[in-house]
């Protein structure tokens, strides 16, 4: 018999049938009587004052029920308490092309769209800021008045003695790396349906119910309460099936607030579903980032110091920005042993859609720079890049120089696995011309040790109720977004209780029914909600065990429960009554009861799960349990300013080898295979872990080779899935996923995160492989064909052809802009005379 019955087995997601047959319901599948369609009017200006809004003509259109503007809900909100800079709709000014100006609620989409054309808005253009390094010099016409120089937040951290570290180094590398902007591109566009009940006592608007595509139902409830001045108890948030989030639904997205504001004004339920273009404007993706990185090493490859300056182009609102810029610095630690670190991080506001959290939040672009530079240094000092990583491993248990606690650490095995399986030693350097191998590592938190909203409440709570039918109902606020949260919860509960998985029903993410959980972000669910589920199940199990012990006339410690069987340790299961073993109990009310049984039978040695449950309910009067989880104090990090972000109870680890070939005439990079080893502590559901790892690698592949938000004077040139090119199945390589189990001492059954940590390594693994293949060092992602070709041409001294808009991908100085000319002849929204679009003129 294996150690476990339910966990550790590859099983289908418990919500798979609905998704695959189409019967499952996503937010847009919901309709309620009297429902209206909401459409949002977006700003055509990147930065402008709103002088006047006249909605009267729109209101007069037949079929329009309400038109709302910023004044209808002026309370500020934001996902971070330090970043409450958003309003439901623009109040006084707009800050990016696509900013939300007004919303029409009408009886049809067509009418709502027509009404948008009838809203008359008078704008006064302001100078706009598109480049973060330019924006940081701004002294007036600030994007937010309380943010001098358009800097949302800057942090300056020194750990150890970086100057001394660099002085001791035998080799120092220094370079600028640029990663362009990418977005989540979840398959499901955001959708929210919001409607108020009528209070039967007053006849007025009562409770609000919101169905929304969200990763964070609790935060949504909280922010709705703030904006609508409604107690949280009067708001119910329900998360239906979600078609992917990747961070794009991990905060409050404008439509979620706007739908509720519109519903309040219309006195009817309002549904808003974003178009794909609106999804790009709502964005909250990974900011384009400048990383100025310096690494010092000894001759043997040991890192002596790292200095890292990061500038993030955060867009027009704070969103998760403060957390992003902190993660970028904090997670320089916890992967390797780095004795001295200097970090300067700038989160900068620009007149572009807001960036936020995206898979691998804050770590990905810095990891691209770091792992690339490690590769450069390895080449310089003549060390195998894999060996370079090995000599810098941490020796856990450890507290890093920047205060991160590392317990379980499967990175050494991850490196061994990918090196062995890829044939690194035998094949590297011996591949045909134009073909190469690259290695890189990455890591990620298993949930943040400190919550966004400072409080003493647990990060996750899970309730369990078991009734006489033997059905186990688990209530969790954790948000299933396709990653397998519900399945993980059910598995843990079934494993602890010793019952079959089919008994377990998970009710999740409905704020009326389920206890508070912070939501699905920063890869926290398995570790935190999983631990809460484990504790809740253990609490219930105690009652079952005590009843069973009584019934079997044995000590508590002698009761074994597994696979729906309850037995006294030491007795054989073979003689057990077949009906009991199968779990059937006739007349659940009488036959199973303790009193009844005592009269009829001698003490039993075996019971069915249902018998034991009935016995427990008879004795305890009910069978419920609660468990909660809060990260231990030791894992909550140091005391410096900004120390709250980065600490996690456990970190996942990944090592990857990419094999690529480069077409030297076209610059097209083909990725043939990626070996990805991921330390997830314990794989509760291996096939789900593989899915997460493959998905992460694939998403990294997109950022590495082809995904890029293209900008021209604040206009996003490719706001659609045709021109924003996530990889298709055709160019997706084989990904060999290797699960490494380091069994974390604090994770549920030893589990850690699996959904994000593998993304960051993919990008540098590919860039390092490109270097191995053709000897060019690309310091600007993505490694699109024209960038690769430009670098190849420079390397072979070919005639200079400007094919990368003036930005050298091997030594990028700044971000590039799309070509062509924005300027128009009196047709469009006039830009301010100092707007870069006019200063730059036509190119």
């Amino acid at each position, binding site marked *: 018999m294996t150690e476990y019955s339910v966990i550790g087995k590859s099983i289908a997601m418990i919500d798979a049938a609905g998704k695959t047959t189409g019967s499952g319901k996503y937010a847009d599948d919901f309709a309620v009587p009297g429902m209206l369609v909401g459409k949002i009017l*977006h700003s*055509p*200006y990147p930065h402008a004052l709103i002088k006047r809004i006249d909605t009267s003509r729109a209101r007069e259109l037949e079929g329009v029920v309400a038109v709302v503007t910023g004044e209808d809900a002026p309370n500020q909100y934001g996902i971070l308490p330090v970043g409450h800079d958003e309003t439901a709709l623009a109040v006084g000014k707009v800050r990016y*092309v696509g900013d939300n100006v007004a919303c029409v609620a009408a009886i*049809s*989409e*067509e009418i709502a*769209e027509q009404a948008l054309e009838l809203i008359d808005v008078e704008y006064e253009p302001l100078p706009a800021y598109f480049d973060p390094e330019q924006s940081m010099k701004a002294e007036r016409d600030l994007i937010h008045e309380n943010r001098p120089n358009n800097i949302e937040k800057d942090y300056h951290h020194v750990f150890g003695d970086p100057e001394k570290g660099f002085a001791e180094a035998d080799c120092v590398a220094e370079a600028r790396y640029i990663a362009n902007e990418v977005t989540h591109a979840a398959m499901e566009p955001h959708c929210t349906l919001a409607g108020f009940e009528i209070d039967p006592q007053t006849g007025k608007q009562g409770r609000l119910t919101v169905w929304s595509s969200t990763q964070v139902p609790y935060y949504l409830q909280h922010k709705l309460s703030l904006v609508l001045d409604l107690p949280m108890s009067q708001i119910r948030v329900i998360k239906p099936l979600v078609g992917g989030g990747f961070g794009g639904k991990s905060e409050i997205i404008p439509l979620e607030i706007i739908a509720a504001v519109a519903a309040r004004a219309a006195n009817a339920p309002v549904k808003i579903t974003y*178009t794909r*273009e609106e999804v790009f404007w709502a964005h909250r993706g990974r900011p384009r980032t400048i990383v100025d990185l310096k690494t010092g090493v000894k001759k043997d490859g040991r890192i002596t110091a790292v200095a890292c300056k990061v500038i993030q182009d955060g867009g027009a609102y704070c969103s998760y920005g403060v957390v992003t810029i902190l993660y970028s610095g904090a997670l320089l630690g916890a992967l390797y042993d780095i004795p001295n670190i200097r970090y300067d991080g700038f989160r900068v506001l620009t007149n572009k859609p807001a960036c936020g959290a995206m898979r691998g939040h804050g770590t990905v672009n810095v990891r691209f720079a770091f792992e690339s530079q490690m590769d450069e240094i390895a080449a310089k000092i003549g060390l195998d890049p894999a060996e370079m990583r090995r000599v810098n491993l941490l020796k856990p248990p450890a507290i890093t120089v920047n205060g991160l606690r590392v317990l379980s650490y499967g990175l050494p095995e991850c490196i061994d696995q990918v090196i062995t399986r890829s044939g690194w030693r035998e094949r590297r350097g011996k591949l045909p011309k134009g073909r190469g191998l690259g290695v890189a590592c990455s890591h990620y938190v298993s949930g943040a040790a400190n919550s966004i909203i400072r409080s003493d409440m647990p990060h996750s709570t899970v309730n369990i109720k078991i009734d006489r039918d033997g059905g186990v109902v688990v209530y969790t606020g954790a948000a299933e977004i396709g990653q397998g949260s519900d399945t993980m919860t059910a598995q843990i509960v079934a494993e602890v209780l010793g019952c079959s998985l089919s008994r377990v029903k998970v009710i999740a993410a409905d704020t009326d029914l389920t206890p508070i959980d912070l939501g699905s972000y920063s890869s926290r669910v398995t570790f935190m909600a999983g631990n809460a589920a484990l504790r809740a199940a253990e609490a219930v199990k105690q009652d079952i065990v005590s009843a069973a012990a009584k019934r079997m006339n044995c000590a508590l410690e002698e009761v074994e429960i597994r696979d729906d069987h309850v037995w006294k340790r030491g007795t054989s299961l073979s003689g057990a009554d077949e009906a009991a073993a199968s779990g059937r109990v006739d007349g659940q009310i009488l036959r199973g009861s303790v009193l009844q049984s005592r009269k009829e039978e001698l003490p039993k040695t075996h019971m069915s799960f249902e018998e034991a449950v009935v016995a427990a309910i008879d004795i305890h009067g009910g069978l419920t349990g609660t468990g909660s989880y809060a990260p231990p104090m030791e894992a909550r990090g140091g005391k410096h300013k900004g120390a709250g972000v980065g600490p996690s109870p456990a970190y996942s680890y990944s090592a990857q080898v990419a094999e690529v070939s480069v077409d030297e*005439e*076209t*610059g097209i990079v083909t990725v043939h295979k990626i070996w990805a080893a991921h330390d997830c502590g314990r794989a509760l559901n291996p096939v789900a872990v593989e899915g997460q790892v493959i998905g992460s690698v694939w998403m990294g592949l997109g950022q590495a080779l*082809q995904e*890029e938000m*293209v900008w021209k004077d604040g*206009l996003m*040139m*490719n*706001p659609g899935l*045709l*021109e924003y*090119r996530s*990889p*298709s*199945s*055709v*160019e997706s390589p084989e990904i060999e996923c290797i699960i490494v189990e380091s069994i974390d001492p604090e994770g549920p059954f030893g589990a850690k995160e699996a959904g994000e940590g593998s993304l960051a390594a993919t990008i540098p693994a590919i860039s390092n492989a490109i270097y191995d293949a053709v000897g060019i060092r690309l310091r600007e992602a993505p490694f*699109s*064909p*024209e960038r690769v*070709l*430009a670098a190849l041409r420079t390397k072979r001294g070919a005639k200079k*052809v*400007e*094919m*990368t*808009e003036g930005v050298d991908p091997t030594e990028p100085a700044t971000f590039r802009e*799309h*070509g*062509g*000319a*924005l*300027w*128009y*002849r*009196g*047709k*469009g*929204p006039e830009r301010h005379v100092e707007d870069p679009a006019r200063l730059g003129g*036509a190119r």
Partner: protein
Amino acid sequence: MSLPEFRLLRPQKLDEAVSWLASQGDQTRLIAGGTDLLPSMKQKLFAPAYVLDLRSIKELRGIREETDGGVGIGALTPLSEIEHSPLIRREFPVLFEAVRTVASPVLRNMGTLGGNICLDTRCLWYNQSLTWRKSCGFCLKKDGDLCHVAPASKTCWAAFSGDTPPALLCLGADVEIVGANGARRVPLSEFYVNDGIVRLHLAANEIVSRVYLPASSRGWRGSYQKLRVRGSIDYPLAGVAVTLKMRSGRVEDARMAITAVNPAPHLVKDVDAQMIGSEVDEVLAEKIGEQAARTAKPLTTSALTPEYRREMVRVFAKRALLAAAN
């Protein structure tokens, strides 16, 4: 995004369609597979009073061998049917190669040959929502007065982005056009206008009904090379088609055409003169590639830079030639 309101017409016969167009052509848009038109209508690029659905007209479908040895392909024939036709694959390999690169398998089931030939020209400043286009003051092609990719130009530089026309140009194909005055046949090479707005020599009351591949092009070797970022779905960012007639290792005749780098697909001039009688080698291919690149005038209509795309025309022309020859 919703579709603008329109009346849908579903004629069963070609002459019904033609007679409708004779009176209402100016207010009518034709729909075949819908893969080009419907997204554009949602973006409010077109708001026709009528949409005439050609799909019920059976006579517009199918691949047929003509008595003269040529092959006729109905304009409504789905691209996937051409892709899977053994006759096309055997006799006109360049068309087979081109057609199988169009979009994705699902889109090829819907998209038709006529639709691919008459594809609207494309540009990042044009194929956007109404809201988006407002933010840049519109463009020459729709509602504006400026070509953003060529601000000094009086004509539109949106790029023709069909994959099959360069192949068909190389095959010397004709198109049959039906109008109120009956059918006429024009060489495909005279069908296009190098202006992103005018695009085609096709009146509002006319329908492209068939494509003819002449008997004289049967059995020519061919290759189509397409620049795309993704292995599927993408429109071409540049495309080069080549056909060769070879005898004893030497070129007897040759044609080359390019797409996605001009407002119209173009035959590359004088390719035959430079190649006839020669063996195809790297040197020749290089020379022809440079000539193709000179024909290309890519601008910032798509994500990859114009300079790169022009360079790829050179490389892909060379590769197409070598692939076709070997």
